[in-house]
Structure formats: C-alpha cells, structure tokens
C-alpha cells in the first residue's frame, strides 16, 4: 500500500515538474516587422470596464508603438474608444464609455483637448450622466458627434468647444453629411429587441432635425458616396439574414432602395467604391466584397484574392491616398487582434500582429 502511494506521489510530482517548464512560454511578440511607405494610426477598443483602449502609431519602419497615446500623454485613452477620424492635422477620437472626445495632434501625439460629454443633471448623484459618444463626422468648421443618450453634439473645430446638442432618435450610431444635411442612424440598439428604425435628417444651417426617414430596424453605419447619395446598413436582430444595405435619396430624403440580396454587417465608402462585409458570428463565415455605387453593382464578389483568412472581421478602413484596405481581425475579442493591410487588388501586403485588443479602425493622414 505504502509503495504504491509513493509511486502515485512520484507520478504527480513528475507531472508538476513537467508542467513548470510550460510557465512563461506565452506572450511571444512578433519579431520581424513589415515595412510600409506611409505611417498609420490604429485605434483599439480594448474591453468594456478595463480602461484599456489604445491608439497605436506605426511609422511604417520600426516596431509599432502600440500604446502611443498613453506614452505621449502619461494617461490612457479610457474605456472603449469607438471612432477615430483625421481632420486637418488633428485626430479626433471618440471614447464611448469614458464619454470623452480626445483631440490629438497627429504629429506629436499630444492631446490638444479632452472634451467631456455629460449631461448637466446627474439625477441627484455626483457628476452628470454620461452621454456616451459613438461616431464623429465633419462638415466645414464643425464636427458632429452621435451620442447614445439620443443626441448629436456639435463641436467647433476652431475653439474645440461643444456649441450645441440636438435631440435625435434612440442610440444613434453612424452619421454622414451630404448636400448640407447630416444623416444619423437611430439604432435603438441598447433597447434590444425594441430597436429604432429611423434616420434623422438634420439641417446643418439651422442645426435642427427636419425629418426622420424610416428604414429597416437597427440601422448602423452611414456613408455618403461622391454623388451625394447616403447609404445605411441595418443589422436587424443580429441574424445574418437581417443585415441589409439601403440607399437614401438625399433630394427627397426618402428611402430609395433596399438591397435585399446583400448581407452587410459593416461597410465603408471611398468615392464611388464601397467595401462591404458580411460575417456570421456563429459559423465564423465572412465575405468581403466590393461595389460600384454609381452603377449599383458588385464589382468583386470576393475582395481577398490570395486566400488570406480573417477569423473575426471587426473593422474596415481605407487609405484614401493609395486605396489600401485595412481589415481588423479581433479573434475572440479577448485576445489581441491584428491589422491586415491589403492592396486594392486584394492581396495581403502585411500583417500587424497583436497590435491591440479589438482593433477597429486605421487612419492614414495626408502625407
């Protein structure tokens, strides 16, 4: 009895020692970095409640500075940065849960101003309630920021001060300007399954809402093409068959067309070319395709031509200067994601591995 117990003990201890060798094997970094002929910025959302959103900067040559904003400012971006746009020589970052807009000098990475977005009334508690900004769009000397509290905030880009709030529908997401009007997608997404299904049309001269256009439930991103048409995708109740793309006639401000045969979870438009993708969360099936918005037709059924695999597409960005396409792969949202850069022909140029947690956008500034 005694002997056998010793043997068992020995086996377990052996097991332990062999296990020890495995310690610290994780967290291997990419050793060789690719090269690129232009610098870029990558926004990573991090994860809710972890204050670990990051802005990475890559000069195209050396190792990317993954936590660039924090290194330059001595503080983190906060909880869930959701959108980034370059305007002039500044970057505008929209931090959703921290409820801030961060205006950053694109060269130095220094924050020029941190703009809080809170209500006046705190319901009897300390501080006002968070407005939770989501997306930003620009027109002339103003920036417009959709906020989950059902408003659009207007920011003066010269003084960097908020100079107005306008009430729109529930939980507005994407927004875009066409023909002097701002189109805001009212998703109602936080009140699932009671989604909103409207697009607010805002006259920018008077900063008033002039109309709401009914679209399919849970509208999400809004983009304009170079003819001044507005496109919006609706995500329904997040079943792949619900994802829709719709076109808005911006003269009559009516729904002009619903692309029933396309499943569009996310998209972006540059000029008259749209890059769109469909992704089924349960089967992990994804497809990225390209459309000509003027002709209303798909010009490439499969954008990726070299067989590169995207596990979980999480963001789609373009380099407006050379047409490169960036796709963010978020894996399971709990592991650091990658940025894949494709040529306009759909061939993988390089991969920025482990750039940050939940990368969602790449920005390239005017060289």
């Amino acid at each position, binding site marked *: 009895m005694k002997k056998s117990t010793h043997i068992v003990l020995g086996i377990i201890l052996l097991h332990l020692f062999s296990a020890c060798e495995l310690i610290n094997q994780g967290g291997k970094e990419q050793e060789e970095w690719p090269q690129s002929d232009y610098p870029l910025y990558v926004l990573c959302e991090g994860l809710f*409640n*972890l204050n670990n959103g990051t802005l990475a900067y890559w000069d195209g040559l050396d190792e990317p500075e993954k936590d660039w904003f924090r290194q330059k400012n001595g503080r983190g971006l906060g909880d869930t940065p959701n959108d980034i746009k370059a305007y002039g020589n500044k970057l505008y970052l929209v931090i959703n849960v921290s*409820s801030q807009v961060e205006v950053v000098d694109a060269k130095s990475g220094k924050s020029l101003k941190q703009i809080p977005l809170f209500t006046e009334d705190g319901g009897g508690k300390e501080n006002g309630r968070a407005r939770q900004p989501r997306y930003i769009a620009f027109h002339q000397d103003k920036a417009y920021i959709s906020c989950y509290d059902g408003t659009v905030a207007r920011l003066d880009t010269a003084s960097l001060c908020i100079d107005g709030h306008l009430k729109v529908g529930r939980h507005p997401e994407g927004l875009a300007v066409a023909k002097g009007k701002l189109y805001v997608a009212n998703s109602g997404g936080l009140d699932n399954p009671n989604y909103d299904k409207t697009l607010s049309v805002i006259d920018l001269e008077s900063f008033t809402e002039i109309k709401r256009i009914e679209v399919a439930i849970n509208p999400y991103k809004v983009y304009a093409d170079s003819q001044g048409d507005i496109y919006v995708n609706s995500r329904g109740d997040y079943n792949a068959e619900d994802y829709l793309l719709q076109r808005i006639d911006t003269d009559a401000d009516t729904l002009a067309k619903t692309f029933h045969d396309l499943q569009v979870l996310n998209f972006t438009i540059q000029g008259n070319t749209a890059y769109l993708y469909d992704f089924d969360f349960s089967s992990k099936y994804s497809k990225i395709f390209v459309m000509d918005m003027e002709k209303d037709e798909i010009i490439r059924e499969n954008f990726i031509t070299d067989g590169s695999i995207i596990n979980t597409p999480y963001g789609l960005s373009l380099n407006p200067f050379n047409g490169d396409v960036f796709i963010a792969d978020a894996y*399971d949202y709990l592991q650091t994601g990658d940025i894949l850069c494709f040529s306009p022909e759909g061939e993988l140029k390089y991969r920025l591995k482990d750039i940050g947690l939940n990368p969602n956008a790449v920005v390239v500034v005017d060289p």
Partner: protein
Amino acid sequence: MEKRRYIYGFRRLLGALMLLMPSFVMLADTTASLLPAEKDSLHLHLKDIEIVENFSIREVRSAAPAQRLGKAELEALNVKNLSDAVKHFAGVVVKDYGGVGGLKTVSIRSLGAQHTGVSYDGISLSDTQSGQIDISRFSLDNVEALHLANGQSEQIFCTARQMASAGLLDIQTKAPNFEAGRRHRAELSLGAGSFGLLNPAFRWEQQLSERYAFSLNGEYTYTHGRYPYTLAYGAAGDSIAHKRRSNSQVSSGRLEAEVYARPGKNDEWRTKFYYYQSYRELPNATTFYNDHQEADLSDRQAFVQSKYSKDINETWALKAALKYQNNYQRYKDEASLATELGHKEYIYRQQEWYGNLSLLCRLMPQWSIALNNDAAINSMQAEGLPGFAEPVRYSLLSAIASKYQNNFLTANASLLGQWVKEKVQHGQAAQDFKQLSPYASISVKPWNEEFYLRAFFKNSFRLPSFNDLYYGSVGNTDLKPEKAWQYNVGLTWAKHFSDWMPSTYLTLDAYYNRIEDKIVAIPTKNLFVWSMMNLGRVDIHGLDAAFSTTFVPAAGYRIDMSANYTFQQALDRTQKEGLYGKVYGHQIAYTPRHSGSGQLSLSTPFGQLSYALIVSGDRYVLGQNIEANRLEGYSDHSISYMKQIPWKHCQSRLKLEVLNLLNQNYAVIKYFPMPGRSFRMSYQISL
C-alpha cells in the same frame, strides 16, 4: 463485547468532540454543547464513523484535504465578513469586487466558483440563476466554524447535494450554549469603523424545557463605503488621481430564529428561519474620466429549513431535511441609456423546494454505508426581460457512499447520480441532464505516528445556470454540464512535542485538475450579444501546503502560528492553433501562480494580539499572458487587539482592528479597488 463497545463509543465521543472544538483537542474544554440534557447520546451516534486517537486532528486525518476555521481562529483573523475569512484557506481564490457590497465568490483550486458548493448548517444554499453563491452577504457574527473540503466532506452521512460539487464550504452557525444552572443567554454587540460602518447585533438563547431550546439573532450593517483609492491612468510614472469610491452605500439586515428540539432520547430536530434584506448601491468598475453611476441592487432572501435526525438503533440512523427558499432581487439603473425613460429595472424571483432523506447503516464498527437522497424544485421568474423562459428545474440526486476506517486506514468511496429535467413557459427548455459522479479517497497511516499518506479522486460537474441557459440572447439551451476531474495526493503530519509545544501540523498536497466543456461567454451575434458556449479546457497543476503550530510558554500565555502556501498553474488548453491559439498554454484569468496567507496570535492575560496576512502574486485580467493584461500582486496585513473585560457578573469583550495596515492600494479584480487602511472597533457583552 461490552468492553469493545465501550471503547468504540469512547472513540466516537472523542470524534464528536473534535467537531465542536478548535483544531486541537483539549478535552477539558467541553463548553460547546447543545442541550445539556443527554448530550452525549446524540452526538455520539449520529456520526458515520469517527475513530480518533488521543492526539489527532481532522485536517491531518482526513483522506481528502479538509480545512477548518473555528471560532477562536476566526477571532484571530481580523475579519468581519465570511468572505475575508475564506481567503485564509489554502488553494482558494475569492473573487472580490471590493467594499462591503461587492460580489464575492469562492473558487477552489482554479475550478471556478460554480464548482464550489456552499452549505449553511449542512443544507446547501442554491442560486440556480447564477449557479454561484455570493458569500458577501454572510457575516461571521453568527458563525461557529467554517469548513472547506476539497472533493467532498469526510462525512458520508450528509445530503446528496453536499456531495455534488467539486468542493464544499460549510458554514456552521452557533448553537445554544448555556452555562450550568442558567436557562437563557443574551449577547449584544456594536461595531463601528471607517467609511461609516455601523454594525449592531444581538443574540438571545432560551431554554424552553428539558427538550426544547430557542435562539434568535440578528444584525444590521450600514456603510457609506466611500473609501479613498488611487486611480492610475496608465503604467508606473503616468498620471494618478486620488479619488473616492462612489455609489457604494450598503445597508443590510439579517434575522435568524432557530428551534432546537430533542423529542426523544436518540433524535434531534432543528428548524431555522432565515431572513436577509439588503440595499446596495452598485459601484461599477472605476471608469477613466467618467465617475457617474446610479445602479443599485435590492435583495430579499428568506428560507426555512428543518432537519431531523434519529439513531434508530446501533446499526441504523436516519436524517431528513426540508427547505423552502424564496429570493427576490431587483436591479435598477436610473442612468441607463437603454430605454427611453432612462430607467432600467429588472426583478428576478427564485423559489426552491428541497427535501433530503439519508439513511446510514453501520455494518461493522469500522464500516458504514450511507444512502443519501435529495429532491429539489427550483423556479425563476423575471420582470423586465420580455419573453423570459420562466424555467422550472426538477432535480433528483441520489448517492451511495461507503466509509471504512480503522486506526491505520480510512477509505471512502461514493457514487452520486443526478437527474435533472427542466420545463419552461416560453421557448425551448434545456435538455435533460443525467450524470454520475464517482469519488474515492484513501488515507494510510504507515507507522504508529501521526503521519498519513492520502489521495483522492473525484469527477464532478456543474450544471448550466438559468442565466447560462435562458438569459435573453445570451442563454443557450444546448449547453452541456461543465466537467471537472480532480486528482490529489498528499501527506500530513502532526506532532505533540511537549507541553509547551502541544501541537504542530503540516499538510502537503499536490493535485491535478482538469476542466472540460467549460461554459464560457463568447460573442455569437456581435460584440454586444454574447452567448454561452461549451468551449474550452483548462489543465490545473497545483500544490497546497499548510503549517500550524502552537506554543504555550507559560500558564495564561499562548502563541498560535499558521501559514499556508498555494501554487497553481491553470493553463488554457482549448485550441493550440486558430481562433483561440493566442491563449493556449497561458495561465487563465485571475489565477495567481503563487498565493498564501499567514496568521500569528499571541494570547496573554492582558489580551490577545493578532496579526493576519494575505499575499497574492501577479495575475492576468484576461487569458492572454501579456504585460498589458498583468495585474500586480498584493499583500494585505491586518492587526487586532482583543480584551475580555469582566463587567459585574457579565462577560464583555472589546476588539480593535487595523485593516490593510500598510495602506496598499490594490484590487483583486482590476478597476474594482479594495479599501486602504481602515479601522474597526467592536464591543460585545454577554448577559
């Protein structure tokens, strides 16, 4: 034969006394007893078997690791909440979201909180909604002892549910205890401390007749919880801010009444009424640049449980229990942007009907067999969740267990069967679950010395909770149970060196655990819509070491020292390549490789001085072991001074405590800061 029975009986008596006392047997101290009348007969027989030498400690003798904190140890730990006491057990991680009101759950040996059973006076607590017990609501005010068993308890004569989990925390409450010649006893206490802490409590015990006694106790706790903390906006050298926790007020009350009866010579009957109510503001994770929060949680929990046990004859014994429990929980968030009104409210109700019938057969003096049967009906309703399934779970559990014990060998084996069926009002019900859980343990004493070799094996599982199965789009009715395998080997040793060093013991256990079909939340529709899936495997290698010794340098002086150390390597083994490849071979989140605790207490005629320490190594907040996810380790030191002050003919006691002495700014869960240095004072008087 007569003599043999006497010896057997005497040994069992010793065994029974072991249960009622601190770890070390001191036969002179026999005050902790139930009713004075015929006290032996009951405690004598209702054990399965308990053969105990003159010098033996349960922790050492037990075939599966068992740890115990008795009243004296608990007092020396400088803890008020049960969760803080549990942190002193080896191999345990308490997920503590900070403050009095923060969620606190216990995970044993990296298996996850849902594999830990928690029982209150031998009857399991259940929360079918979340599948885990929030132990933040239990204070130590009414607690006689805490037991933590890996695998399962040494007692085979128990409920089937107590055998169903991978580990068991049993909370044993105080029983009436009358001094000779008195028929009642009263205790009043008042505690106060930092952050507006106020904690009055009372206890009344009354002997009603020779065969009946009654106790009533209650407490109230209030704290505004606005403790200061330092928020770091980045890494070392980056900006920091000195802030105060907000939205963290807690007020809670508990009332408990119990009737103890001994209707006949060989039976016992206890009926307990329990009511708990709390209002807690819910401090969220500290969010950079956004301090606003308004969410709160109201709880009402009531149960009545009745336990009956009877020694039918020398061979047979019987136990039965019935319980009804009703839970109400309301979550409210006025600042929620989710609805048009800016007001989000959910109400969850849970009910449980539970019954147990156990039969014990003492085949031989050394060999017993028990058959434990449980049945339960759990139901849940929700307001604010349109189309909620309103599930009802019917469970049947049956376990057959055998225990053999002589002076050199203890061997336990059991097999538990569980059948679960669910019905729902809306949508689809979960599949039926049928599971078998085998368990075996052995302890051998090779020489005539208090040195034991031990080993245990257990295969258990946890069922998906109602949240896992039915919560909105998160729930997944196709879930299978999550399986846990445990293998443990260890050695234990105890020695009585001399009168001034009466007891020293050491236990050392190495273990290998495995979790398969781990139930995890992953986004299935988009990042905002997560669903539960059976995905993932975790391999756990670990080592627990515990040491304890006592010195008695002179009469009236006593030094108690104990320490434990835990090594845990809990590695993700889900997928070597592909989607989950970046975390393969990495330590799972919130599991320190190294952790430990230590206690030192000095008892003198001038009072008792105690020091307690908890240490944890670095952890990772997510499964990927990279610098960005690393959360630094911490240590938490506390000291206390306690003095008995006789006042007229009453006993009274004053206790002063300094918690987190070094004012370490740390978090167990990232961005849920723990309080810094704080003070507590309490005064208790027994009438």
